């Protein structure tokens, strides 16, 4: 944690230091200590900024753009830049050319014309200066808006809720199951023969149920495998299931004597129990 006190940063930051002396403000007149020139120029974000500064120093409005004195002052800055071979001079030279062009048009006698709409040669520059000034204002607004990580910080709380995250079990749709079945069969290349009939499935289910019952009870009374409440279809399904189980050699049906009770039982292990 830092306890260093932070100086308020917003105001009166020196532009830089010249021979140990802080240069606080842009110069009020044109005299600039030569060493400070670069610093001062860097404090302008471009020719528009410099131009705006020069107009403001004249306490003039942009719309009254005093083209002659401004151009003169501007050229003096540009000359200094050229002497110092500053890289940023290029953009400033473009502006210098524009100012010179406007100045010359202002000085030329205008042919008399009825057209009132004849544009002031300064108009385009004035428009650009106004727009630039608006944007400078926007930039200042942005700088003054609360910034995340400077003025406000995101609040967080700890939580132990991670431990509550449940392991999700995969979900399966019925259609996926049917699709998987047909894909499995397709693998076996048995495509031609499996119209599975619905009754068949209830039979297979009943087969499973009977086998399951036999897990817990070695023999079942044949009669107990029929539930009259299921009605005729139920009885048929049970009967088919038993027949199928017998056919697949999964159960045995035994009857000790004629007319004695019929039992369904697990098949006796015919083979020795294997290790698996």
């Amino acid at each position, binding site marked *: *944690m830092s*306890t260093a*006190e932070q100086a308020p940063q917003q105001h009166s930051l020196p532009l830089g230091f010249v021979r140990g002396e802080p240069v606080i403000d842009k110069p009020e007149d044109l005299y600039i200590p030569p060493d400070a020139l670069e610093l001062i120029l860097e404090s302008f974000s471009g020719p528009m900024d410099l131009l705006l500064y020069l107009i403001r120093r004249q306490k003039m409005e942009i719309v009254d753009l005093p083209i002659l004195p401004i151009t003169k002052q501007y050229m003096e800055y540009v000359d200094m830049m050229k002497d110092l071979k500053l890289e940023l001079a290029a953009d400033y030279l473009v502006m210098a050319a524009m100012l010179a062009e406007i100045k010359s048009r202002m000085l030329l006698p205008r042919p008399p014309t009825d057209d009132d709409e004849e544009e002031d040669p300064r108009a385009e520059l004035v428009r650009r200066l106004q727009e630039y000034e608006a944007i400078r204002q926007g930039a200042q607004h942005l700088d003054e808006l609360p910034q995340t990580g400077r003025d406000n*910080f*995101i*609040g967080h*709380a*700890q*939580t*132990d*809720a*991670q*431990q*509550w*995250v449940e392991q*999700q*079990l*995969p*979900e*399966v749709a019925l259609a996926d*199951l*049917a*699709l*998987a*079945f*047909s*894909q*499995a069969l*397709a*693998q*076996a*290349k*048995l*495509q*031609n*023969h*499996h*119209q*599975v*009939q619905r009754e*068949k499935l*209830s039979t*297979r*289910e009943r*087969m*499973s*149920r009977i*086998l*399951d019952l036999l*897990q817990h009870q070695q023999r079942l009374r044949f009669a107990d495998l029929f539930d009259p409440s299921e009605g005729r279809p139920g009885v048929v399904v049970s009967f088919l299931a038993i027949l199928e189980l017998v*056919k*697949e*050699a*999964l159960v045995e049906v035994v009857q000790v004597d004629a007319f004695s009770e019929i039992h369904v039982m697990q*098949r006796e*292990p*015919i*083979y020795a129990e*294997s290790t*698996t």
Partner: protein
Amino acid sequence: MQNQQLKQAVEALLFVAEQPLSEAQLLEYFSNESISRKQLKNILTELQKDYQERGVQLTRVASGYRFQTRAELGGIISRLWQEKPPRYSQAMLETLALIAYRQPITRGDIEDIRGVSVSSQIMKTLQERGWVKVVGHREVPGRPQLYATTAEFLDYFSLSDLSELPAIPEPAEKASNTGQTITAETATNESHAHE
């Protein structure tokens, strides 16, 4: 600094700090504001009270104070990290489908149909899920287990019985299927299936 603003600062700091902050750390932090230990303790007590009934609470843990969510909200908040359920592999789905449509069935039968071995992990997963169980043994060498689906399986798919399983979609390709050798068991099953 006013007491009110100091309290706001302590509160904000505790919400922003990555780690719990101890009293000592807080005192050092506010050394410029020359806050007394007693004053700090009062602020912390007040804050704890303020947040008593809120969704987050100021809690003292071993290394200091921090804001944390109410314990009762764990279930709801955990949804933030809840991942989407994973998906079953094709092998798993086909195995389950074969058990559903061809039960009772042995692992060998499934392998014969699918043409690849079925891993024990798949059978284990299906049984742990409660969808499949062993309902007996086939009386052949090795007495392989017979698998069937369970009532839970039917419940999961909202079926009242297996006959509600969808009819099988037409297979995509109807190509050469002559001279296939299949095991007796499956052959029987299959030939019965379309009777």
